[in-house]
């Protein structure tokens, strides 16, 4: 698809303000604006969908917290709001989303465009095809930044997330800016951005190791390389300091430190709200015996975290790829996943256009994802509204969705390994893989 877009990256980013870029960004903006204006009920409809809004990123819950906050009541009273407190003063500046929906919507559009810009920066750096320790065999097979941005901006999942005003977009921004700063060699800004993302959603902290390795590899390309140990420790301290600073600010806002910690991070960690979503946790913990709940919470979190070490060790030469695959893992296995997590994974995948020819199950994975994203809402409707289905209908569909994402992820990892193999054994390019 779209081999005609294959171009060499633009060597001068300043001149990247070309017509294609303006067209893509403008079209994305206008498309979102049209959808909002032509279908005024669409944002609220999407806000209520369980696939888009989870208890930790729902705009409705943010409104509830905002209402309490503007009336000087603790936003966590009532147990509805579970998001970071710093979002509250930010949204308090915007006009009320109920009576003036457009300013908030435009704010979200702009955040989306910024995310796309960060993606362009990542793409422009070329780190996905050629890094310090690794150089892909098919480096000429790639898309330029504008195409990558277009893939992100015109992805229906991204559009739905943006229209639903899910606060996941800020986490996405944090992660994308952390990566774009890291590939740009600005490791301090990368850590601050990762601190922001971790502060909002906790799980991005798991990206620290691959991200710091990415920063380290970039630094080694420059003059006066530092030692690995002190570099990592310095950046860990930086990350902790940025998170601590944000927590301190939050404490100033909410007043009660432990209340907000338990309502936000406690909520992420202990998963008390089992509202259905596209993930695997809710059904499992509904069925789980109470006495084993804590144990399996530990198992699920460890399962999520255990990929960090393994993937980083295996792909030490490609830290950016580790980040991409970890984002895929999070989209499947994190406690409150939504389609915004999948959209972030899909946003980074086009950077690995050169791996696409090596992938084997793209058709199957694509079909599974399409199938589940079409049938998911239908089965949810059957279960909740029509009453002719039950929870298993929806859960089965979320399993298919996770299966599709997992196949895509595994296939990408396979392709990356194959790429490494071909690089080490140039004589074997094109031979068939055989299971032994």
């Amino acid at each position, binding site marked *: 698809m779209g081999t005609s877009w294959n171009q060499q990256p633009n060597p001068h980013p300043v001149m990247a303000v070309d017509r294609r870029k303006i067209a893509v960004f403008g079209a994305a903006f206008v498309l979102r604006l049209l959808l909002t204006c032509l279908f005024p009920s669409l944002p609220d409809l999407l806000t209520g969908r369980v696939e888009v809004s989870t208890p930790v990123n729902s705009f409705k819950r943010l409104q509830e917290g905002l209402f309490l906050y503007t009336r000087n009541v603790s936003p966590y009273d009532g147990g509805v709001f579970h998001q970071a407190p710093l979002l509250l003063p930010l949204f308090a500046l915007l006009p009320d989303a109920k009576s003036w929906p457009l300013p908030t919507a435009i704010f979200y559009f702009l955040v989306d465009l910024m995310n796309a810009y960060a993606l362009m920066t990542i793409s422009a750096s070329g780190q996905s095809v050629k890094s310090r320790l690794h150089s892909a065999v098919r480096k000429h097979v790639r898309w330029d930044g504008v195409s990558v941005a277009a893939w992100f901006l015109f992805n229906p999942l991204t559009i739905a997330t943006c229209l639903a005003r899910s606060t996941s977009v800020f986490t996405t921004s944090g992660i994308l800016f952390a990566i774009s700063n890291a590939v740009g060699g600005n490791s301090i800004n990368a850590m601050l951005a990762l601190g922001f993302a971790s502060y909002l959603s906790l799980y991005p902290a798991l990206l620290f190791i691959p991200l710091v390795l990415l920063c380290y590899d970039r630094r080694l390309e420059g003059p006066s390389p530092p030692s690995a140990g002190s570099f990592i420790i310095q950046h860990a301290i930086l990350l902790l300091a940025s998170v601590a600073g944000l927590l301190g600010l939050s404490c100033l806002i909410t007043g009660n430190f432990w209340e907000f910690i338990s309502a936000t991070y406690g909520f992420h960690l202990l998963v008390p709200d089992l509202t259905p979503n596209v993930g695997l946790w809710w059904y499992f913990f509904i069925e789980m015996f109470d006495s084993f709940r804590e*144990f399996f919470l530990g*198992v699920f979190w460890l*399962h999520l975290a255990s990929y960090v070490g393994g993937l980083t060790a*295996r792909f030490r030469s490609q830290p950016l790829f580790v980040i991409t695959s970890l984002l895929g893992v999070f989209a499947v296995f994190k406690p409150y996943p939504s389609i915004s997590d999948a959209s972030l994974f899909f946003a980074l995948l086009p950077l690995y256009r050169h791996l696409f020819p090596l992938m084997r199950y793209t058709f199957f994975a694509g079909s599974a994802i399409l199938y589940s994203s079409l049938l998911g809402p239908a089965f949810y409707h059957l279960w909740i509204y029509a009453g002719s289905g039950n929870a298993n209908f929806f859960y089965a569909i979320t399993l298919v969705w996770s299966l599709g994402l997992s196949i895509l992820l595994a296939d990408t990892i396979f392709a990356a*390994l*194959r790429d490494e193999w071909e690089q080490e054994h140039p004589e*074997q390019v094109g031979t068939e*893989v055989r299971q032994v």
Partner: protein
Amino acid sequence: MTTKTGDQESPQASSSQGDQLSVKRAPPPETPAALQTRFRVIAAFWAVIIFLGFPIWWKTTSIYRASLPIEEMVDWADGKACRPVFPLDIHLATPSMQSFEAQHLLRTTQHTLDDLNEFAAHHLRLKLTNGTTTAVHNGEDNLEYPAKETADTALTVRLLPQDGLASPWSELHAAATQLDIFYPPSQVPVPSSSNSPLSTFIAAELQQLYGEEKATIAHILSGNTAGLDSTSPQLAEDIDRRLRRSMKYAETYHLSFSLFTPGSEPSSWDIEAAVKEYVSPLLQALSPISNFTVDTQVQLYANFAPTAPKPEYDESEAAWTLKKEGLSAFVNAAEWPLNPSIGNGPTINFILYVPDPSQSPLIVKENRASSWIVPQWGGVFLLNPPLSNTGEQSAPSNPSHLSLDSLGPAFMTFSHQLLTLLGTPSTPASLPLRLQTSIRIRAASLLLSASSTMGSLARLTKSLPSIPIPATVATSVSTTLSHLSASCVHLREGRFGAALASARVAETEAERSFFEKSMVGQVYFPDEHKVAVYLPLLGPIGVPLVVGLLKELKRIAARRKANGAAS
């Protein structure tokens, strides 16, 4: 979960891709770097499992079991820790006797009593007092039970000489713990004689006074199977019947007084004054035993259940009658709003039923009675107020208001019914004595009940090693045990009020520890089920991890061997 294993295997499976290539050619040997990477990947996964997984598993699935004094609990249940004894202090007031005469009388009477007594746990101790006026006050004091060190006085026996008597006779005060014995002065025992008619008479009186209590306590202590050998079958049956009719002991009882009438009148009653007059003094007296709350209600247009037998008119009695066997259906449990329980604790219902003027007067056919007890539930009283004729044509009607006077008989009956429902013995005639007896009986039964609860808890913890025992249970158990032994000591020293107070605390704590909710969660969760909990998820994750580890270990072992052979 297959997706998960797919993900996990991929780094390992693909890292061993060296063996996977090429159909005909042998795969190229793995480079040392690839081997090292594979080792690192496996180590990374296992490091997470070992350093994070196992601590979490240990922390979240270990069961907290507070240590309980099992031995001591079993001892209590088996009755080894405490033999409850009931030494009753009886004061002998002999205002008109010489001191040595009184001493002698005391000795001989005590001797006779000891000879008569066959139940060692319950014995009467006679003591001399020289006061004559304190006796009346004792009756009051005994019901309040300040924490005094001396034993409670159970009874004061006053010996009063009276001329012109052939044999002694006795009179029990109905409102005090006092027994007056009038004797002919000639019967004062002389020191030489070892026995005298007066001492025999006193001993027999006391024995008879405490006969029922003794039999009841013996019945309770022997575990409701057999009483004393000497107890007459009649008495044994009475005791058994009373225990069956009385409510189960509770810390708090709710008394509910209800006025039911099938018509519109009477619609008011002097209930507040009636409760104050007839019930409150009794509740005050019963306060050492239990707490009480009082609720009242008036229900008009209360009909009989459709299936209940209708009253029949009896010409000979000139009254409407209910058959005795139909009384059980009298209370229309389906429609009359009688709550089974108000809050915590059982409810005792008292129903005042005013029949319709067309069916008045209403009585029980067989014995013309107007009241009866519903065992373990409450009492019913049929009140037939005088009918009033307002006009010549109109039918007679009930008065619209029931005054305190008209409620008197009903509430006298209710207070008797309350005593019966609470298990107070029917003899002796003196109310303070009956209440004292009641205290001793309750103390004995609570002591036994709390002890046996301790035993059950001990057996439960021993037989189910997988249930958690929270620290609150251990605290409750130790409170129970300390109050049990305090209660036992109080009993031995004759302070029955204090003994009951301790026994009540012990019983409450024992029940709380036994019915702790968090303990029973895992009772029905045998160890075999844990396989079904762990395996479906951890199996698919674990197999590739374990196989990867084994392969890696094998490779390392093979290399060691090769190195050893080479050197």
